[in-house]
């Protein structure tokens, strides 16, 4: 079978032009996807758990039924005083919604991978707003592209060919020649090597460079010293001129800003630079989101609770205070006494100090495959992968919801079904 116009469930680009060929329940060919997407689609059956597994109490593991694992998960959550429900980025919007409802009933904390990714970007957006646009606008109009603190060649390999440097634009005669590419980073990455202008900043210097650019764009360049964080004033003036003379500029940034010293203040300064540039021409700003539906978790959490991530229901109302109610902080303080992880892998991506606590409390993992978190949990429930053997909704990095289609049936339940069944058990004890 050949399936066309399929949506890739890897990164926030959500490429929707993928062609997949199957023989039986095997994927034999993938066209149009990048290395990352192709690999995920081609190897989807490998390492999937056959069924739920639980610790056997004797230092090993045993197989379990779905019913038993769901019963265990519900019991763990009901017994806990401060359960943490974490993950939610590589799953469908439908499961995210149920997760929020369950967290509310349990009086727990629900957080997505946003808190270790673009959480600080959202804090900045809450301070000064988000001058965003859809990627279609960027593709068809943008003649200056900035990638700051990110490396799309490695992390979003089709971003440049679908939306920026290598993409044809409706309002551009010769897109490749007409688009200028500016890359700003602390090291010379693959993306930097194809830039028209590469700006190498000393680590931790982003905030100062944004401030210098804002001063130059505003006509106050006289206050800028000869070098700022290792960047010459001459180069800053050149960049400012390119940005001001753009017809349509698109600013993309990655976790190079959100994880650097200054965190959300870097992003705030970036947004304010874009604000400044909009006094001269049209500029927009978009965070490069990682997981294919991490944006969806922010959307779903926000429309249900008012807050985009790190929502704490222990006060019977939605409370949000990143730095306090974010997963890394809760785990590092050894505060939660049970954890449900859905569709993410903190074992690989959380600092060791957090994992030591995660391993010491009853942790239940809902994930299709064996991951680094598997050894740390007490019970794992395998589910279908959205976009492969489950359909559902995901949000692209520019906030556009896209329906993910399924093309295989491997017999696994969906995340929505498993979270829903756990929620039903919780409701039997704790009535809404």
């Amino acid at each position: 079978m050949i399936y066309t116009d399929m949506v890739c469930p890897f990164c926030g680009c959500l490429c929707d032009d993928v062609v997949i060929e199957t023989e039986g329940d095997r994927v034999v060919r993938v066209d149009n996807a990048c290395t990352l997407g192709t690999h995920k689609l081609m190897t989807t059956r490998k390492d999937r758990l056959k069924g739920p597994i639980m610790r056997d109490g004797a230092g090993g593991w045993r197989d379990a039924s779905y019913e038993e694992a769901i019963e265990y998960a519900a019991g763990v959550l009901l017994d806990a005083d401060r359960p943490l429900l974490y993950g939610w980025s590589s799953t469908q919007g439908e499961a995210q919604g149920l997760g929020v409802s369950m967290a509310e009933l349990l009086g727990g904390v629900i957080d997505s991978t946003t808190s270790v990714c673009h959480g600080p970007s959202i804090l900045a957006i809450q301070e000064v707003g988000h001058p965003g646009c859809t990627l279609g606008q960027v593709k068809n109009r943008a003649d200056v592209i900035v990638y700051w603190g990110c490396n799309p060649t490695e992390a979003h390999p089709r971003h440049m060919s679908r939306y920026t440097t290598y993409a044809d634009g409706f309002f551009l005669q010769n897109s490749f020649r007409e688009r200028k590419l500016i890359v700003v980073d602390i090291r010379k990455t693959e993306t930097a090597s194809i830039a028209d202008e590469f700006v190498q900043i000393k680590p931790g210097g982003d905030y100062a460079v944004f401030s210098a650019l804002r001063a130059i764009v505003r006509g106050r360049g006289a206050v800028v010293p000869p070098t700022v964080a290792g960047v010459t004033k001459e180069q800053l003036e050149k960049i400012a001129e390119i940005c001001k003379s753009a017809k349509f500029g698109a600013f993309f940034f990655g976790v190079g800003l959100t994880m650097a010293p200054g965190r959300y203040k870097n992003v705030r300064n970036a947004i304010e630079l874009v604000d400044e540039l909009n006094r001269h021409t049209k500029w927009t700003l978009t965070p490069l989101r990682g997981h294919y539906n991490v944006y969806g978790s922010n959307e779903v959490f926000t429309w249900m609770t008012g807050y985009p991530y790190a929502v704490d229901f222990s006060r019977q109302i939605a409370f949000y205070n990143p730095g306090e109610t974010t997963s890394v902080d809760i785990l590092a303080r050894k505060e939660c006494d049970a954890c449900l992880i859905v569709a993410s892998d903190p074992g690989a991506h959380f600092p060791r100090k957090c994992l030591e606590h995660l391993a010491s409390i009853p942790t239940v993992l809902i994930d299709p495959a064996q991951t680094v978190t598997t050894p740390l949990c007490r019970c794992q429930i395998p589910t279908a992968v959205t976009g492969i053997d489950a359909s559902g909704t995901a949000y692209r990095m520019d906030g556009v919801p896209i329906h993910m289609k399924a093309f295989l049936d491997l017999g696994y339940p969906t995340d929505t079904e498993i979270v829903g069944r756990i929620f039903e058990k919780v409701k039997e004890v704790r009535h809404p």
Partner: protein
Amino acid sequence: MRFLFNTGRTVAQGIGLDRKSGTEYAGATSRCMMNPVDMMDLDVESGDHLVVRGPAGEVVLSVVPAEGTPRGMVFVPLGPYANHVLGGETHGTGMPDFKTQTVEIEPTEREVPTVTELMEEIGGVAYEQGARP
């Protein structure tokens, strides 16, 4: 020697992402990319092992020369190896020091551990499943 510990994505790390129990993923995330001049100072060659010490502990990685990495900085693909040395401080933002930690690095003869060994060291229990056809 002291280095700024920078972690982030690489294609090889991303490819391994959905098959983290594989050796490819371990190989892709236990690399420590370093400026060749710093490698000379440490007297190590490509493939030699380094012990990296951070606030939460230490981990053994293998060194890879990378001219794009400035002196005084190492770049390690994000994953269980990089996180094995990181603490839980977020400076009130929820975001740990994935790119801003200072670490101590020196050459070692010790072997690079497996991902399972790393997880067992922090209290995990290894799971082995027979491979699917």
